[in-house]
């Protein structure tokens, strides 16, 4: 098909932060996940673990624990505040000082009427959950020592609290402590150290399960306060516990990075009645502390210091091997791909990297040489960091944009939007902040510039889009584009057409609205597909919109004709190849080859793919048809074939995994037929992590 110059960029030293807490909402099947930097991510487990929403972090916020009450999400942290999140506007709705010192944990009762928090000062505080707010109710008996972990008995009458060296069971109505379970300290040198009960679980049969810093998982009788069973699982800490919904299984996460499952089963086949908690399986998918765990219907979800979110399916819950039964490792927040912006104007090749605390503007290197495939070209100019823009305020940057001419730069936090004018002449760059911004523009979920840089679009609340006109001197509010559907969900994708006529915006309700920018009104709604769009792009010449969804389906929609194109219909009729559908990371970017209108460039984290509509679609139904083998070969396999064999294996999906050793962030065609690949090798991330706990390995 041709040769491409690839700029391999490896200086994007983005470092995801560790996972601190997670909470799974069984009703909506959403997983809320808190990271060390205070950001919260929402994953939709019904939609291929798609990361729907990200609530950006804040410097002062630290989240120790997350808790769902119905569809509402609460967090508590060491700053002593309880916060509720506005999941529609992706920001904290309010936060409340609990006045009990740092808060270690927050839980709700099964009815969803009360919240309990465990505080540093030894109190367990109960809050009433009101319609729009929460209200302090009372304290349970104050204890000496901090309350590290809490678990509410499903009946709502008792709360188990993990503390230092002990577990307390409280009677909720009276607020008195009814049981005091003493937890042994560790052996040897750790005897003098207090044992921290990192996690407790209160089961409906009044069994209390605890995990502590001495490496024990202990099972207690909550009625009598006696120890039933001790499992010493690690030399280090047991940090997290999670109980399955039917209470037949408990998983424990340790500092060694292992997740250990315990099951309530009869130890022998004959005595089916005498069940006890037996250690059954050990999973090792992490290198560092497992800080957060959730056992869901069919899988164990774990996360920790090594920043990966791992979905480990329980194979006994699956009848056959399928896509869902495979292990999932989510290394990066998916939206991270939106954190990179590329401007290719004037061959400048500017690259904007967004970090939570800053923006970095780079200019790509340059080379005059031409080379054979596989060559590395000598650089005429090295890449250069032009600008480092630190954000103002405590809130982390949630989105940013660079205009394609390279003259405008904008970023938004949850509290403000800032627009800058960039001037680059030769090697000097000057940046001026646009001082007067329209009032309406106070925060944005997404930012985007029109292709001629005359307008900026900001995704605002309730799926609306603000249109801002940019001139040299000022920027002016023009209009607010509102969807007809009345969706309140935030927009997570936005793209404009090359001729400046169309704007497409996708929200978490899977709706894609196309607006006519000349008439400033809604043009059409793309038929809603059941999976969330993960990437989209409008073709610069044909104005066909390519949309890829979280379930890997691919559509091409003609905006002008308000219908799917023939190619898209044919594709859907024939079905996508399984190799394509089974990929486990969503496509995060769509771009086009300006030289060849038939080519669409897509990429996910492991590969990039150029779809050439002129080639045959690789579908099993095409076996042997017009000289096509029907095999879905990727580029590496194709390269290894001989010249004679190759033509029969060529197909429309040119998948290139050359960069698979690392995570791929972006593939975009610069105007001179070159691609930009931003790589962030996993190894580079691992090497920056703190050292894991020392483990005895065989023969060391």
């Amino acid at each position: 098909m041709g040769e491409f110059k690839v700029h391999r960029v490896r200086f994007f030293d983005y470092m995801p932060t560790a996972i601190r807490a997670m909470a799974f909402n069984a009703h909506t099947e959403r997983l809320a996940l808190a990271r060390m930097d205070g950001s919260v991510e929402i994953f939709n487990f019904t939609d291929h673990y798609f990361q729907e929403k990200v609530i950006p972090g804040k410097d002062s916020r630290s989240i120790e624990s997350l808790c769902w009450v119905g569809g509402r999400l609460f967090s508590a942290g060491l700053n002593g505040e309880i916060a509720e999140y506005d999941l529609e506007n992706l920001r904290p709705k309010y936060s409340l000082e609990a006045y009990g010192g740092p808060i270690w944990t927050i839980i709700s009762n099964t009815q969803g009427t009360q919240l309990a928090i465990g505080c540093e000062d030894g109190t367990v505080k109960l809050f009433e959950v009101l319609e729009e707010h929460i209200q302090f109710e009372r304290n349970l008996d104050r204890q000496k020592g901090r309350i590290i972990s809490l678990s509410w008995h499903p009946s709502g009458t008792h709360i188990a609290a993990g503390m230092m060296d002990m577990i307390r069971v409280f009677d909720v109505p009276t607020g008195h402590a009814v049981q005091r379970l003493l937890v042994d300290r560790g052996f040897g040198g750790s005897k003098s150290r207090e044992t921290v009960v990192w996690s407790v679980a209160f089961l409906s049969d009044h069994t209390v399960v605890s995990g502590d810093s001495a490496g024990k998982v202990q099972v207690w009788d909550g009625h009598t306060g006696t120890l039933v069973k001790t499992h010493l699982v690690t030399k280090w800490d047991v940090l997290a516990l999670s109980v399955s919904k039917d209470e037949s299984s408990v998983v424990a996460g340790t500092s060694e990075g292992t997740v250990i499952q315990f099951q309530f089963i009869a130890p022998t086949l004959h005595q089916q009645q005498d069940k006890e908690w037996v250690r059954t399986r050990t999973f090792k998918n992490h290198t560092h502390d497992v800080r957060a765990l959730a056992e869901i219907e069919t899988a164990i979800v774990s996360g920790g210091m090594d920043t990966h979110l791992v979905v480990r399916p329980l194979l006994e819950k699956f009848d056959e091997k399928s896509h869902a039964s495979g292990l999932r490792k989510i290394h990066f927040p998916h939206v991270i791909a939106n954190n990179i912006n590329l401007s290719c104007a004037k061959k400048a090749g500017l690259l904007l990297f967004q970090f939570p605390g800053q923006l970095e503007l780079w200019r790509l290197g340059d080379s005059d040489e031409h080379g054979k495939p596989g060559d590395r070209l000598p650089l005429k100019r090295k890449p250069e960091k032009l600008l480092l823009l630190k954000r103002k305020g405590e809130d982390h940057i949630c989105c940013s944009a660079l205009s394609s001419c390279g003259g405008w730069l904008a970023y938004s936090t949850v509290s403000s939007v800032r627009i800058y004018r960039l001037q680059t002449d030769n090697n000097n760059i000057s940046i001026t902040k646009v001082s007067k911004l329209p009032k309406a523009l106070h925060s944005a979920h997404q930012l985007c510039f029109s292709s001629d840089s005359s307008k900026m679009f900001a995704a605002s609340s309730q799926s609306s889009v603000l249109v801002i006109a940019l001139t040299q001197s000022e920027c002016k509010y023009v209009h607010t584009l509102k969807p007809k559907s009345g969706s309140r969900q935030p927009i997570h994708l936005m793209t404009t057409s090359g001729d400046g006529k169309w704007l497409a915006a996708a929200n978490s309700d899977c709706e894609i609205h196309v607006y006519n920018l000349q008439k400033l009104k809604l043009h059409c709604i793309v038929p809603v597909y059941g999976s969330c769009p993960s990437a989209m792009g409008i073709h610069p010449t044909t104005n066909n919109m390519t949309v890829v969804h979280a379930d890997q389906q691919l559509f091409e929609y003609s905006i002008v004709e308000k219908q799917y194109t023939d190619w898209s219909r044919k594709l859907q009729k024939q079905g996508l190849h399984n190799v394509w559908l089974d990929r486990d990371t969503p496509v995060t970017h769509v771009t086009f080859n300006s030289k060849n209108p038939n080519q669409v460039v897509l990429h996910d984290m492991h590969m990039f793919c150029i779809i050439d509509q002129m080639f045959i679609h690789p579908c099993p139904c095409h076996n042997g048809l017009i000289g096509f083998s029907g095999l879905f070969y990727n580029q590496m396999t194709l390269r290894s074939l001989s010249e004679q064999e190759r033509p029969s294996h060529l197909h429309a999906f040119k998948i290139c995994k050359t960069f698979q050793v690392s995570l791929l962030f972006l593939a975009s065609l610069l105007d001179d037929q070159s691609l930009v690949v931003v790589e962030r090798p996993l190894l580079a991330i691992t090497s920056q992590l703190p050292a894991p706990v020392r483990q005895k390995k065989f023969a060391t």
Partner: protein
Amino acid sequence: MAALYEGFTLCGLVQTQNASDSPIQGIELDGDSDHAVVTDSTRSVTLYKVSDQKPLGSWTVKQGQLLTCPAVFNFQTKEYVVVSDNKVIRVWKDEDLNLDKAFKATVTADVWRVHSAPGGEPVVLFQRGAVRFLDSLLSAPQQPVEDVLSEEEVIRWSTNIVAEEQHFVLFTTEQKGECCLYVQRLNPNTLQKYRLEREDSGASPLSFSASLQDKHLNLLYLYPNGCVYQSVVAARGYVGLEGVQALPRSLRLMVPVGEGELGAASAVALDEAHVAVVGVPHPSARTGKDFLCIWNTNFQTLQAGKEMAGRIHGQVWCYLGKLFVSHGKALSVIPYECQKSSLASALGKLRHTGLAVSKSSVAVPSWNTLLHGDQPQGPTKIVETRKSKLSRKSQSAQALTVEQVLELIKTGPVDEVQREVEALVSRGDAQDLQLSVGQLACHLVARSQAETAFYTPVALAQLVQTQFLCHSVCPGLLLLSLEHKDYFLCQLCLQLFPDIPEVVTCACLKTFISVPDGDVEMVSLEPDSVSFMEGLVGARGGQQNGFSPPLFEEDSCDTNHQPKPPQDKKNHTLQLEACPVGLHKAVLLNEVLQTPYSDNFLLPHLKDLDTQQVILFLQYLQFVYLKYSQDVYTQTPGLRSPTMTQIIDWVCLLLDAHFTVLVMAPDAKGLLSNLQSFVKSQVKLFSELGKIESSLQELHKMKLSKDISQYSIEVIELF
């Protein structure tokens, strides 16, 4: 050994319209050895006096007529013969001014060449292969001439060779890519046809050259791929063979051709062992196929080379020690000299270049500058060379020439000989010296051997230091110096001769070992080697400036963690004793250690040493070995010193040669047990090294991860 001398331009050449044609048809000899008859490609014949580069006479045919064959000199009648327009044979004498008025005869068939050689009658070779004596042809010009060659066969090259009583005309033909050699014997007339082996590439030879050697006709031919083949035809063979015979060939030389094939190139045999090739690249020059090179075919070594300015026409003639090469716009004459070559001198060429770089003390001209330093470029250069010749002549008015010195050596008194040789060596330029040094040394040695009183150590040392000498050039020199106890000269020879026979090495060793220390200490030796030895001895053994190193706790050749039993203490102190031989003696022994040898040849001669000598030598070797392994002795770079391996090898050789004797000798016992501990420690060391090696090997196996930089631009291809 061969050399090309400063060349000069005989005449300018007129460029022909057709650039590929040479402007010269041929060069032939005249009755005078200094004359050359040059026939140009069009109409004129010029007679030159070569040494003066001056035309003596010129003859031109009329406009419209064309000379089709180089003019030759009829040695019997002292007449010149040329052919014009293929059929007209013209004969004239030196004093004839006008060619048109000369004798003319028109023959019936086209003439290819007229050949003439001293001692033989001129022969006319017709284009269709017939051969006639000139005399008989001129007496009946209209006689019919038969066709020998087939229709499409054309003559490419021809020559004639006159040996005692025999006269040959050789010519090669080509037909459809097939080359044949015809050997026409005259009186009685026989014609033999040979087919040349085809070259793989199918190319035909670029040039031929024939000579008579040992009653065999040697045909030398060069192919465009640089191969020079030789075929031999018996001159007096059985001639009754009918038909075509295959001509066996042997590859004499592979001339490096550089890029592409040779275009206009030519090879000519100079003697049995030397071939001059023109139009080839020089192996050490990067580009350009415009060199004249002399190769030694026995050793395949390049002996001399000269860059020729301008385009080479692929023509070279060789007459009486001069090469005539037409190149660019000039015909150059380059005198050359070939000597019988020895292996050492053939090899020595390359060696010397290396030494000349490292050894700046000895004034040796760089081989490269010798080859490429001054190249004649046009007439201006020639003027210079003339000037320099003049100046040289004026010098030699005071000093004697090589020949004169040689004469002087035969009879002259020591002082004078010494002075003259010195003068000659110090002023002579490298190229001349290279050839004369050997002769000088041989004469000096011969005289010394004949007269015991005659010995010129300084002159000989100077000759050796020129580095043009080697043992095979002057075999008696080293032994003579031993005889005269001239240890300095011995050392020089050992250092500088690459080819000392093992027997001589052994003789030196024997002499050095048995010579009393007192005798040697007074001799001045090469300072570098002495200072090395001083360093070695003084490093630990002696006291320097009052510094006495603390005694070693242990024998370091044993591993440290092995506590020494007390009875070993004696040995131990013995090892710490000073060097078993005197300083200068040690220096001389070191030279022997560094002499190249092959152990098969050395071993029998080593047996000549007596036990005491062996023990002493072993002790010395042990001393050096210990010094090497004990001390953190860092070798001063540039100092000649025996390597560890050389020492060990010599120890092994000595033990091999004298093992039974040594085992029986009581005074060798301690020594042998010490040597055993050497071996033990060595074995231990090497086993440790073996372990390390295998672990290091693993490092090699590790796949080199691609250097991943922060940024790169790569090209990928999608299908």
